[in-house]
């Protein structure tokens, strides 16, 4: 073709530039999030056998454990027979740092702790882990957020911070 420059409308040109910039920003943020911050789709990093999880290991006796003063870990087991979380009531002192470990004994569940950034996909065979510090008193309900069967709506519990 000729070496003349193609005519592009100024508004269209601006629109294209914005589109390219958005693409570049997203590509960089996906790279940083995936490779450097380690935000990845669930991968088999913390494997656990769902057949024996309820019989031995920390999930056989789920609940709040005080590792050291003010520093807790909380094991929660989700099951579909019956549909519930173990435990359903947890009480922690205000200011406590709690590391959540959640897993499923059977099918895929969800775990969402209201008013916090804790929101897991709970997969059988894998542990979901996150740490949160409770700075304010109150009741923090948690619910199953992934449809797991006819008793899905019965899966809920509450963490009381006092």
């Amino acid at each position, binding site marked *: *073709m000729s070496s003349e420059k193609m005519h592009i409308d100024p508004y269209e040109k601006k629109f294209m530039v914005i589109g390219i910039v958005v693409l570049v920003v997203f590509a960089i943020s996906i*790279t940083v999030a995936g*490779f*450097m911050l*380690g935000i990845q789709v669930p991968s088999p990093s913390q494997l656990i056998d769902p057949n024996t999880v309820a019989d031995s*290991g*920390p999930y056989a006796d789920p609940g709040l*454990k*005080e*590792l*050291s*003063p003010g*520093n807790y*870990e909380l094991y929660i087991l989700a099951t579909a027979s019956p549909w519930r979380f173990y435990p359903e009531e947890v009480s922690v002192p205000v200011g406590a740092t709690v*590391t959540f470990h959640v897993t499923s004994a059977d099918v895929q569940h969800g775990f969402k702790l209201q008013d916090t950034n804790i929101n897991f996909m709970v997969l059988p065979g894998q542990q979901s882990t996150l740490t949160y510090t409770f700075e304010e008193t109150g009741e923090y309900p948690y619910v199953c957020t992934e449809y797991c069967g006819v008793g899905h709506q019965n899966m809920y519990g509450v963490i009381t911070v006092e």
Partner: protein
Amino acid sequence: MSEKKTFKFSWLHLFYAFIALVVVSVVSFAVFQPVKVLPRISLAPGYAFLNQNNESRTSEDYRGKLTLYNFTYANCDGDCPDTTEKMQEIRGEIEKSAPAGIDYALVTVTLDPERDTPEKLGLFAAPYLSTDNSTVSWDFITGAPLRVRYMVGGGFNLFYERDPSEESEGQASSDQESDYEIKFFPLFVLVDGWGIIRAEYPTANLTVEEVLDDINYLTVEINNSEGAAGLAYEAAHLFRCYP
């Protein structure tokens, strides 16, 4: 149409080529992971305790050494998950086949500091320490109960408690305060010379090969920590190139 395109060199082309080369090499490094490192999990806790010979042992004494920790207590028997025999096996294997030129150390931490005095740990440690002439140092350490709680629970995230069922039984019998069991899950922790936790093994059936593999990853990283090779290993940390 018939006009032939001629390529004219410009510095801008060279700049684009350079950018493309950087992007391709970074992405291929992240995807193919030519260098593998153990993750830097978290800082190991600091402490100042006593060993089985009543000598001071602090976390600073293990700077510059690859240190393997395990956790048990002297009255641990029956179905208690005692891992001390496994430590002895690993100690012999480190002596035989671990890379030379690196200092290694083993540390056994008591979970029952109320009863485990340095003297009692000395009796507990004697059969393990006397059977071989290994040069790898092995300390059995104890301290104030609250300090042990901060170190083991807060630093290594290992929960332990007196068995509640045993305790209620004990109150009925005569010797309640001296006879109880401690409940815990077995755990080994590998700490590097900078005092960073690099591997955790929450199992009683740790294989010696598994530990030696991880020790090899660490020694290779230590031996390549200078200059350009060091940068490659830092990049491997950045891109989470874990085995």
